[in-house]
């Protein structure tokens, strides 16, 4: 440190010269901020691939019959779209990118509890991604089971399911280690004076998420291993011919994969809880209620997996219990929505890009949430089960919820991460285009689903044509918006105006450190009163 005697000139984490130079200084860096960016670049790369696959599916559906691909290619494409989007993007997504970057700074720490383990998580992530993607090019052709790998098809299919399943298994480790790291960091490394109930809401959301990551992911791990055993050793657990039960696979799978939905959405809620108070110039309304509802969602989320299986064959008692519990989860989610609305009420609102994303999140999330209740009640579920309605609901929650929150968050913290401002006009144009496209794309699918169009088919009856054309055109508009957003951010990261420490008047600790932060974040660990 002697060569930088003046503290103000201490180099930022982006310029800091460590043991290695160039790219090695990144891929072997244990700095939580650099790891956050490693995740950002790798996840955005996969996201672009996943989005292109989604667009291809929508182009196929622009007209009935075979348009640009046949049935088998379509199955392979929706499987790969699901695997990349779920396992490579939305599950690691916000915790790995924004969580890694911000969590230590927001709680006043120099790094996470296990910096080397953190780097290892990224490497495991890359390994898992390579194995999962390799399934496309090796063996008997790309997997076509859907991202859920349902038995019996997943062990009977001749396609290369094994690599995809192993990839998802490896990615699980990365997720577990990140969660473990975050929990220990929050328990032991909060700055002096930062009691649990003074911790900002984004770290709180990550805390709830981390518990789900470490307690639910292993169940998926063992389930996927059993599919491997089924395929290689013929062990028989999910094979009725050997006495097993395919339904058991669905239970085990959703015991993880439903809580995983909350791994996806909780961090998004955390971002919104940071953005809205800052841009409303008001403290968050009902801080404790939001914290408690976060923990409640994480907890109750474990007991609702059965609502994915209402038509799969369960006892009436189980159906009622799962439906009731599903409705229970809606309560803490609604508490959050009311708190966010009350936060904006009588605030002096700054209409900036992150706020637009935050406000539109509320709308998307409410549509997604309320349609979730349509799926959670037994009678209506039977009607819309496995239709486009489910796809629309799911994308409203994950893409409209988590996706919008992520884009809001990346604009909100962009000045902190890169030390430069993004171009506001292009950012707003990107947001409008994206949102309009989004509403046409997925909004129409609610109608198609109610009208009875099943999901996961490359073809459909002529009466669904109009709806599909609107939906596909929406997809094109949305992808255009996405391109505007991403290109604007890339250009701004290099050429944007220099950002001050606190461009928004944010109150949390990350706005008190330099933009971009120095390697150690703080010259001195702050004390919170």
């Amino acid at each position, binding site marked *: 440190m002697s060569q930088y005697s003046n503290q103000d000139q201490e180099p930022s984490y982006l310029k800091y010269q460590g043991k290695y130079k160039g790219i090695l200084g990144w891929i072997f860096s244990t700095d939580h901020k650099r790891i956050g960016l490693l995740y950002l670049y790798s996840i955005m790369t996969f996201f672009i691939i996943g989005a292109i696959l989604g667009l291809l599916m929508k182009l196929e559906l622009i007209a009935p019959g075979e348009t640009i691909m046949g049935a088998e290619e379509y199955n392979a494409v929706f499987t790969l779209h699901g695997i990349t989007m779920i396992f490579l993007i939305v599950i690691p997504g916000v915790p790995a990118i924004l969580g890694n970057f911000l969590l230590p700074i927001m709680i006043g720490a120099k790094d996470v509890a296990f910096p080397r383990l953190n780097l290892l998580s990224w490497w495991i992530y890359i390994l898992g991604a390579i194995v999962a993607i390799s399934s496309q090019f090796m063996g008997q052709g790309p997997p076509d089971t859907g991202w859920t790998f349902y038995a019996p098809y997943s062990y009977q299919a001749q396609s290369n399911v094994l690599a995809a399943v192993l990839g998802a298994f490896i990615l699980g480790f990365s997720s577990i280690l990140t969660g473990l790291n975050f929990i220990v960091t929050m328990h032991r490394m909060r700055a002096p004076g930062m009691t649990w109930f003074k911790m900002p809401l984004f770290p709180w959301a990550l805390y709830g998420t981390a518990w789900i990551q470490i307690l639910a992911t292993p169940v998926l791990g063992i389930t996927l291993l059993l599919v491997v055993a089924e395929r290689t050793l013929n*062990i028989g657990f999910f094979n009725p011919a050997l006495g097993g039960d395919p339904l058991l696979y669905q239970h085990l799978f959703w015991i993880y994969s439903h809580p995983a939905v909350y791994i996806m959405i909780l961090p998004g809620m955390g971002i919104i809880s940071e953005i809205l108070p800052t841009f409303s110039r008001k403290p968050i309304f009902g801080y404790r209620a939001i914290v408690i509802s976060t923990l409640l969602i994480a907890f109750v989320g474990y007991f609702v997996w059965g609502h994915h299986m209402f038509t799969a064959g369960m006892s009436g008692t189980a159906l009622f219990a799962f439906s009731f519990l599903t409705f229970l989860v809606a309560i803490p989610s609604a508490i959050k929505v009311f708190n966010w609305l009350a936060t904006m009420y009588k605030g002096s609102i700054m209409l900036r890009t992150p706020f637009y994303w935050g406000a539109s999140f509320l709308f998307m999330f409410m549509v997604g949430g309320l349609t979730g209740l349509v799926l959670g009640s037994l009678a209506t579920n039977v009607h819309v089960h496995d239709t486009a309605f489910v796809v629309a609901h799911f994308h409203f929650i994950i893409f409209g919820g988590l996706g919008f929150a992520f884009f809001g968050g990346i604009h909100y913290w962009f000045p902190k991460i890169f030390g430069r401002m993004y171009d506001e006009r292009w950012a707003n144009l990107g947001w409008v285009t994206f949102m309009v496209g989004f509403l046409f794309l997925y909004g129409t699918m609610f109608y198609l689903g109610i009208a009875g169009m099943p999901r996961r088919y490359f073809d459909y009856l002529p009466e669904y044509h109009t709806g599909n054309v609107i939906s596909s055109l929406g997809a094109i508009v949305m992808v255009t918006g996405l391109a505007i957003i991403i290109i604007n951010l890339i250009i701004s990261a290099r050429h944007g105006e220099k950002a001050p420490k606190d461009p928004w008047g944010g109150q949390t600790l990350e706005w008190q450190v330099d933009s971009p932060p120095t390697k150690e974040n703080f010259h001195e660990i702050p004390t919170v009163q």
Partner: protein
Amino acid sequence: MATEQVVQHQEEYDREIPKLGMWLFIFTELLFFGGLFLVYTVYRFENPKAFHFAAEELDVTIGTVNTIILLVSSATIAMSMTAIQKKQQRNTFLLLLVTFLLGVVFLVNKSFEWLEKFEHGHYPGSETLQSLGHGDTLFYGLYFAMTGLHALHVVIGVILIIVVMVKVKKGLITGERYALLENSGLYWHLVDIIWIFLFPLFYLVT
């Protein structure tokens, strides 16, 4: 600058951090096995008779011996913790050596047991097993999946103990800093406790 950092880190060293991390990892492991225990519960409930007769085929003597071995090894690794806290490097090393040897003996016993089952054609996917019926297929499937996964954990534990032994010899694990030894101990207890559940489920409850 490098030395400066080391000093800084030692000042901030928080014993609880590695321990808490290990406990969380143990929760993960428990749920990992939890999935298999769930499968066991379901299939035992569905095939009570077949599970009853198949369980009688397993050798209770070897199972009991292995249980005693693991319990003793848990005690020795716990004693090595006390030894390192009292700064008795030599005793720590010897106790770890005993733990290591017990772990190996467990694996040897296990492999004899497995080999015997293979000779009788009792392995996943075999025709003998399928001719016995669904219940036996599932029982032996579970037996190999659960004891196999457990054995894999024993192997990892044994490797960990070797690493710890080397570090104790080199003086890298001392009376002041013994997080790795403590965490390996915790891991070894986990391996032990999973066996404590596997043993009655497969050998004793008939």
